[in-house]
């Protein structure tokens, strides 16, 4: 009964979405207030209905209703409760339902929190979101119904894929989807602007917090995925350039470009058509990701069970949504194109460089991901494009990106002088070279010049971001350096808009990330050893003692658990009894699906991770063991979290929530006067998020 209720709620949600799409769209076209007014309540009703459907499926999972096909395929009576709940999105059908729920939640949030946006524009935005919802509801109801019954009911379920039985993976998809789907809000803003034929600085300001939030979720989602791959896949790496990883990374790159281009649009009315195109691209790449993951056109480690019929549906959907919006763009964008003048040394130019480089990165990833597919279509060959390609391109495009990031944020709008900006950058440049070249000396291994260069780059981003914050808070943003006094500077720091703080935090995150990647790549030690009980091994300045393996039993798996003790190797190489940290890696065999799983044991630290994974049993008491020493690997995820935190802080900027009329006029007016250095500039420069 409960599954049927869910099915019914889903069908009703489709009907509501149809109304939410059709009525406000026509109402906005013909200017009928009563029709326009349908949008907000419809969005909230749709959210309620999808939430009911989702709750029904969750109930079926918790109660273990194996008469539902999807539950029987992805759960088991011995599955712990938390994974029974996470199992709801552990397969194709349920993850679509989660996607729809999150889309409905974003729509509901737009309906509830956009009172400052004129009703007619909000109605168009909500209608576009409803069009996307319709696609997903139809997808579920026609090809992938999670509520399908199974006759006769299964006695027990086939269990959740053991790889997914992990807390990281329980949280990872909702975060990632919140990001993917969040870009549909930016997309809806863009399409609404194209439909209305009006796009001004106010529009960009309204779109910014939504784009920021979506981007934050995506950043956290990707970081969680990377962290999960690190400890759960048992490879000790943090990024594999797998097609599915790339599928999440491409919208991130496009979204990052969008954040920066929105800054130019919101402040200077620049790059309008380009911003709209990026908003369309970010969401299109999210949809493309969904297509690649679910259609089976590319092989990947974590592709969902694939089905060509589903692939065809998504492809048609992709064609309608993206093709339709790009056709709209081709038709309406010429009217939006902005011709704004700016000097070669200006913040606009810095943002332009940012966009070009991010565009290039995104294109490189897209090419690398689709190349095997194109080759398959042309010649029938099936191949993988490997890590070397991506790593090379990221070094080549990413390094200039980091270099420009430090300098670009310091520049003023419209026109700046290199003679003003460059002296301010001398100190951070010198400091980053000193720190960057000195830091590798602290490592026990041989000096690496590559590491020194990478660390200098990371430090450069950190130091120059701090200098930029002080400069912009202390009046450097204004016409001259008149606010230069110490006291004024600190007061300026307190008054600086949230967006400036957000940008600084996010850029610091990039620096921390670069430092983490550099250390991990240059100084990781990975050893494959054969150890018998009681034997010792030295890895990366640490001594590891192996104390044998014992059998353990989990709720739905059997495990061999290794006992290790690790401690800093003393000068004499003596092992101090009672000291050190215990590490217990496991090799699990899940009872239902019979896959062996490696659970690595990790002692995490700010400056290093110790990582022990159990391989095969060789002969009596001897095991093959992998021991990794990973310096500063936490900084990679810490950097990503800082970026997300920065985006979040910037999204809270009060200026994004101002009402229509005043915002539009004063931004334009202020921009034109600010250029003359006469009156105070507009209240600040929103400029969130990272590069």
């Amino acid at each position: 009964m409960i599954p049927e209720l869910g099915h019914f709620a889903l069908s009703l949600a489709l009907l509501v979405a149809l109304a939410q799409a059709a009525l406000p769209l026509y109402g906005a076209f013909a200017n009928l207030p009563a029709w326009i007014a349908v949008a907000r309540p419809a969005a909230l009703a749709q959210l309620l209905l999808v939430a009911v459907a989702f709750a029904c499926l969750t109930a079926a999972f918790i109660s273990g209703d194996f008469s539902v096909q999807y539950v029987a395929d992805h759960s088991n009576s011995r599955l712990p409760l938390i994974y029974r709940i996470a199992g709801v999105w552990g397969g194709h059908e349920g993850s679509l339902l989660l996607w729809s729920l999150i889309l409905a939640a974003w729509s509901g949030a737009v309906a509830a929190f956009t009172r400052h946006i004129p009703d007619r524009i909000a109605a168009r935005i909500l209608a576009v979101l409803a069009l996307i919802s319709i696609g997903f509801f139809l997808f579920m109801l026609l090809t992938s119904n999670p509520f399908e019954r199974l006759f006769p009911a299964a006695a027990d379920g086939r269990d959740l894929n053991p790889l997914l039985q992990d807390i990281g993976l329980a949280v990872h998809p909702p975060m990632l989807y919140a990001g993917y789907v969040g870009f549909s809000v930016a997309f809806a803003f863009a399409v609404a602007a194209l439909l209305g034929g009006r796009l001004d600085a106010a529009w960009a300001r309204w779109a910014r917090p939504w784009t920021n939030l979506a981007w934050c979720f995506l950043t956290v989602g990707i970081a969680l995925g990377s962290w999960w791959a690190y400890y759960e896949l048992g490879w000790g790496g943090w990024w594999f350039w797998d097609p599915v990883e790339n599928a999440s990374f491409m919208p991130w790159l496009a979204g990052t470009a969008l954040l920066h281009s929105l800054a130019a649009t919101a402040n200077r009315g620049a790059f309008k058509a380009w911003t709209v195109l990026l908003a369309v691209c970010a969401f299109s790449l999210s949809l493309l990701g969904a297509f690649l993951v679910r259609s089976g056109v590319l092989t990947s480690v974590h592709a969902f069970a694939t089905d060509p019929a589903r692939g065809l549906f998504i492809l048609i959907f992709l064609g309608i949504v993206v093709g339709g919006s790009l056709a709209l763009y081709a038709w309406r964008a010429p009217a939006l194109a902005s011709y704004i003048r700016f000097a070669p040394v200006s913040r606009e130019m810095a943002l332009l460089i940012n966009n070009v480089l991010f565009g290039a990165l995104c294109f490189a990833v897209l090419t690398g991901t689709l190349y095997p597919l194109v080759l398959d279509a042309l010649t029938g060959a099936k191949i993988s494009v490997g890590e070397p390609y991506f790593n090379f391109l990221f070094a080549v495009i990413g390094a200039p990106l980091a270099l420009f990031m430090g300098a670009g944020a310091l520049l003023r709008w419209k026109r700046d002088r290199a003679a003003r900006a460059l002296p301010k950058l001398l100190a951070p440049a010198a400091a980053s070279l000193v720190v960057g070249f000195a830091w590798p000396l602290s490592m026990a291994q041989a000096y690496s010049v590559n590491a020194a260069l990478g660390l200098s780059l990371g430090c450069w981003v950190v130091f120059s971001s701090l200098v930029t914050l002080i400069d912009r808070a202390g009046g450097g943003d204004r016409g001259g350096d008149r606010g230069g006094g110490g006291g004024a500077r600190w007061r300026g720091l307190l008054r600086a808009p949230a967006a400036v703080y957000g940008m600084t935090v996010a850029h610091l995150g990039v620096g921390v990330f670069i430092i983490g990647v550099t250390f991990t790549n240059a100084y990781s030690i990975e050893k494959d050893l054969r150890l018998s009980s009681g034997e010792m091994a030295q890895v990366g300045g640490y001594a590891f003692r192996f104390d044998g393996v014992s059998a353990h039993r989990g709720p739905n798996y059997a495990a061999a658990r290794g006992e290790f003790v690790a401690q800093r190797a003393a000068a004499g190489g003596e092992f101090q009894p009672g000291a050190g940290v215990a590490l217990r890696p496991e090799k699990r065999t899940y009872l239902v699906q019979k896959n062996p799983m490696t659970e690595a044991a990790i002692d995490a630290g700010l400056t290093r991770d110790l990582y022990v994974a159990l391989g095969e049993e060789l002969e009596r008491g001897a095991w093959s063991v992998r021991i990794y020493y990973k310096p500063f690997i936490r900084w990679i995820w810490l950097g990503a979290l800082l970026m997300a935190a920065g985006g979040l802080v910037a999204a809270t900027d009060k200026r994004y929530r101002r009402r229509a009329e005043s915002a539009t006029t004063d931004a334009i007016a202020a921009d034109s006067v600010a250029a003359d250095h006469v009156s105070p500039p507009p209240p600040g420069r929103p400029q969130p998020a990272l590069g």
Partner: protein
Amino acid sequence: MNRFVIPLLAFAVVVAFLGVGLTLKPRELPSPLIGQPAPAFALPGLQPGARFDSAQMQGRAYLLNVWASWCAACLDEHPLINQLAQAGMRIVGLNYKDDAGDATAWLQRFGNPYAHIPVDRDGRVGIEFGVYGVPETYLIDARGVIRFKHTGPLNAEVVRRELLPLLGAMRRDGESS
């Protein structure tokens, strides 16, 4: 032409390829090498100190599987390769443009079906075999002649439809000659 149309056109091209990709069945590539003697090669092995010489395989049929730890499609076919090895098939795994540490870890994690693992770090041997991409699989008979080639991940159907009948035929030939 209106420059705002360019994104639409680019997207149309992508969709065309995705559409074709959807209809594609992994199909066999005609290789000029089939029926020819396999290129002879000698390479260091993955285990320190090991060496592999293709001459040592004379006298018995074997599969040459080109793989790499960075290749997602290899993981896809790996269970099947493991099964073939368990069924008694002799498999040589040519480790293609890979890092030795990564390759070793990958095998430990997913199982090692290979009797020998020659390491083709710079892809030289791959060029001689005309490797399009990873994974690829060759069946080489007792006289060192390439009898079969599959580009892309092996799947159960290819094994059942093509590889097993070929192996059966080769076994009969071997008995009669």
